[in-house]
């Protein structure tokens, strides 16, 4: 990777940190640079500490590192919170005229640049633009041409009128000029630009866009961090396609509304996070046993209970795989990157309808709040295929009626999949229920029919296992002795960790698993490796347990559950440590 720059703006919630960071990230993207962002934030509207971090390079980036080169600190706490990431060559931009920063001194060897952000903003037209002054200062510090900010400012403030846009452009220039004039400063950075056009989006937005493209027309949800962005993305867009977003009174209602819409024949979805999944679990069994196609998106955060609502975790794996009483199949998909969030969402809708089954589509906070640049072609619309499964119409419905003309929504078939008749279809009237039912969807306690229905629902999984692609994504050296397995959002950090380990002479075969159920069988890969390490963001190693169970073989585990995602450099060290630990254990044995 060519040289990357790690930049952040931090302050209190309510300081406009997010929009400031996003303006900078967009400007970099417009300049043809890749961007990968992350956020430190808390569950509060004002005060505390919040930061927006941007990692940028001309090469594609898919992870964060433990290093911060330029920091705009609106509060002293912003610096304190980032001491581990700051280094001797770091530059801190702050406003010494802000009372809370008046006695600030840059720690250690790092350089502090006192810029009167508020005063310069007032010169440009209003104190509210102080963050934009800081952005201008950061441009001067990083050698990033200030003109690139302009388009970003136009996008952000365009709807507020020409004058506001111009004031903001002025504010940015005043910041840059101040640094140039007051400080003897030659930037150590070379922020090369390219002619590439990139788009910048986060995982929730990618899921929302995937849903629209997949034909999702009904979304019901209840706001919850970090899944709300899915709902906010869809609201205002889904209507253009004849659809709707309904804000329900709670998650119990949200999933039931989505279920109702799906039974009416709409492609339907809800999204939530762990606490909402707990509530939705009540209805999950009904969705599954009534064989209703539904996409349930779980953007995981740290649990249990209210846990750490703004922190990363992959702790809901077992909940999604086994949640709910009784036994019922479900699919669980876990996209591994932001662009995969888009592709897997489309796939989730197809799988749900083809197999008339609830599909958990699981992201996590790290994917949800991260914005990443992509070439637009990565969202290949020509490749999108929609498969609605066995939907019958009035011309074919008689094939699925019994001798008295009653439609069989739970017909026992070879592949386990029954016909589906949308309400309004003549001759298709039928009921379904959470009670065990017969082929007509009516309650039964007949012992043979019970077995037939349980078996046909399970048979759908076997059919799908054969018919669909449940493969993993592979990186690194396929012949390496060390196999690393992870699922979900760890892929980016792990890919960069491989490069670092490779540079240190450690070869890794890395398998990134986007399918949790059904999932690829890793027995042969584990057999072929000397060591297998499963990497995941939880304490107990839920995926590692499954991998061990599948392969009947023990694996090593690298777990992180402090609420922060894996960082590439840290992960490389953890892998080395796990391997070193193995060597030591052998010596001891």
């Amino acid at each position: 990777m060519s040289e990357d720059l790690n930049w952040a703006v931090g302050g209190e919630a309510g300081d406009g940190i997010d929009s400031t960071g996003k303006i900078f990230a967009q400007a970099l993207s417009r300049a043809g640079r890749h961007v990968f962002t992350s956020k430190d934030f808390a569950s509060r509207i004002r005060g505390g500490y919040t930061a927006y971090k941007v990692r940028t390079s001309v090469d594609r980036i898919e992870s964060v590192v433990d290093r911060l080169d330029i920091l705009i600190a609106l509060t002293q706490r912003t610096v304190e919170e980032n001491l581990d990431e700051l280094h001797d060559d770091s530059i801190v931009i702050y406003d010494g005229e802000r009372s809370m920063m008046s006695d600030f001194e840059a720690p250690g060897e790092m350089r502090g640049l006192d810029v009167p952000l508020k005063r310069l903003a007032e010169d440009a037209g209003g104190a509210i633009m102080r963050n934009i002054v800081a952005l201008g200062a950061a441009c001067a510090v990083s050698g990033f041409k200030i003109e690139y900010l302009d388009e970003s400012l136009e996008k952000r403030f365009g709807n507020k009128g020409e004058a506001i846009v111009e004031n903001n452009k002025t504010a940015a220039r005043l910041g840059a000029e101040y640094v140039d004039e007051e400080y003897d400063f030659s930037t150590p950075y070379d922020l090369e630009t390219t002619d590439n056009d990139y788009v910048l989006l986060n995982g929730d937005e990618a899921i929302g866009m995937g849903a629209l493209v997949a034909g999702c027309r009904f979304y019901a949800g209840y706001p919850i961090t970090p899944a709300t962005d899915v709902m906010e993305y869809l609201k205002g867009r889904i209507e253009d396609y004849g659809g709707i977003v309904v804000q329900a009174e709670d998650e119990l209602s949200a999933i039931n509304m989505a279920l109702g819409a799906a039974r009416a024949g709409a492609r339907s979805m809800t999204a939530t996070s762990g606490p909402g999944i707990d509530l939705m679990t009540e209805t999950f069994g009904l969705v599954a046993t009534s064989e209703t196609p539904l996409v349930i998106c779980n953007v995981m955060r740290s649990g249990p209970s209210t846990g750490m609502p703004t922190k990363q975790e992959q702790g809901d794996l077992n909940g999604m795989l086994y949640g709910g009483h009784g036994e019922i199949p479900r699919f669980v998909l876990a996209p591994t990157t932001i662009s995969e969030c888009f592709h897997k969402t489309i796939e989730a809708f197809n799988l749900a309808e083809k197999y008339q089954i609830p599909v958990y589509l699981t992201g996590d906070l790290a994917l949800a709040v991260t914005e990443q640049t992509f070439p637009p072609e990565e969202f290949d619309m020509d490749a999108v295929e929609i498969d609605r499964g066995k939907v019958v119409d009035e011309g074919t419905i008689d094939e699925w009626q019994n001798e008295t003309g009653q439609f069989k929504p739970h017909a026992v078939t070879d592949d386990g999949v029954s016909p589906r008749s949308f309400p309004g279809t003549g001759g298709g009237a039928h009921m379904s229920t959470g009670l065990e039912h017969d082929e007509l969807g009516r309650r039964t306690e007949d012992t043979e029919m019970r077995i037939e229905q349980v078996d046909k629902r399970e048979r759908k999984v076997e059919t799908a296992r054969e018919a669909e692609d449940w493969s993993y994504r592979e990186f690194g050296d396929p012949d390496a002795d060390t196999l690393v397995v992870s699922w979900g959002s760890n892929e980016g950090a792990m890919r960069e960790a491989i490069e670092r380990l490779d540079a240190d002479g450690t070869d890794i075969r890395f398998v990134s698993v986007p399918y949790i159920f059904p999932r690829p069988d890793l027995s042969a890969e584990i057999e072929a490796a000397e060591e297998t390490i499963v990497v995941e963001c939880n304490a107990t190693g839920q995926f590692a347990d499954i991998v061990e169970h599948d392969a009947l073989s023990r694996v090593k585990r690298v777990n992180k559950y402090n609420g922060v995602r894996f960082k590439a450099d840290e992960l490389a060290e953890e892998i080395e440590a796990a391997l070193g630990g193995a060597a030591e254990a052998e010596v001891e044995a």
Partner: protein
Amino acid sequence: MSSDIRFTDFKSDKQPTWCPGCGDFGTMNGMMKALANTGNDPDNTFIVAGIGCSGKIGTYMHSYALHGVHGRALPVGTGVKIANPELEVMVAGGDGDGYSIGAGHFVHAVRRNVDMSYIVMDNRIYGLTKGQFSPTSREDFETSTSPDGTNQQPVNPLALAMAAGGTFIAQSFSSDSQRHAEIVQKAIEHDGFGFVNVYSPCVTFNDVDTYDYFRDTIVDVGDEEFDHDPTDYDAAKELILDRNKEYQGVIYQNENSVGYEKREGVEGPMTDVPDGAPEDAMDLVREFY
């Protein structure tokens, strides 16, 4: 929709397992008549049922139907109707389903005002679990779980609906079959959330709120001499807050009501989607430039 639809077309071939004499028979017959009278047929009708004796209704009727989870029938109906406004959606359940476990959804369904009807079979008792008090049971009602009375006020469902901004609030008695069917029909015809609390006596576990009790006490607000104007909010409020009498009829109706899905601009069924990405799909990507 064909005009030769008869109410028996909404009957399934399953024989109800309700106790002989159960109020739910009359409630269901009235629903079927009202559906037929409003020009609906089983193929365009969606019944959502809750859990309990009342929840079995989806099995005994012939239409598209879902028998859902306890207390969540209204959200299901909401989803069905919004996703296909051409369907006639009727949600049915009991007092436990609607006013206890589902009370939260009831309030929000009322204020959302989706164009569907909600028929609550209120027998003031939990029947299927064999005789525990319900949210509409009287304070001194003695049951296996309230041997000394419930020590709680019964819910006033009509008042809840009114407080939540209900646009159609009615009550009927399953045994007065003609009036019951008429009232349900009005609920169907109402553009918005047509709520009917139906006194539907439990002959096995409730020896207080019996057929005789309702026959003797019920006052029909539709009677000419009663002279009630359902569009008069204050008059309706007075009736609803009067807990000393049992009223039947349309107590309140806001004639300006427009169903939520219409106000949200839903124009038709959401069932059709293209075979691939929509033609303008790349515009969605370009928004992220």
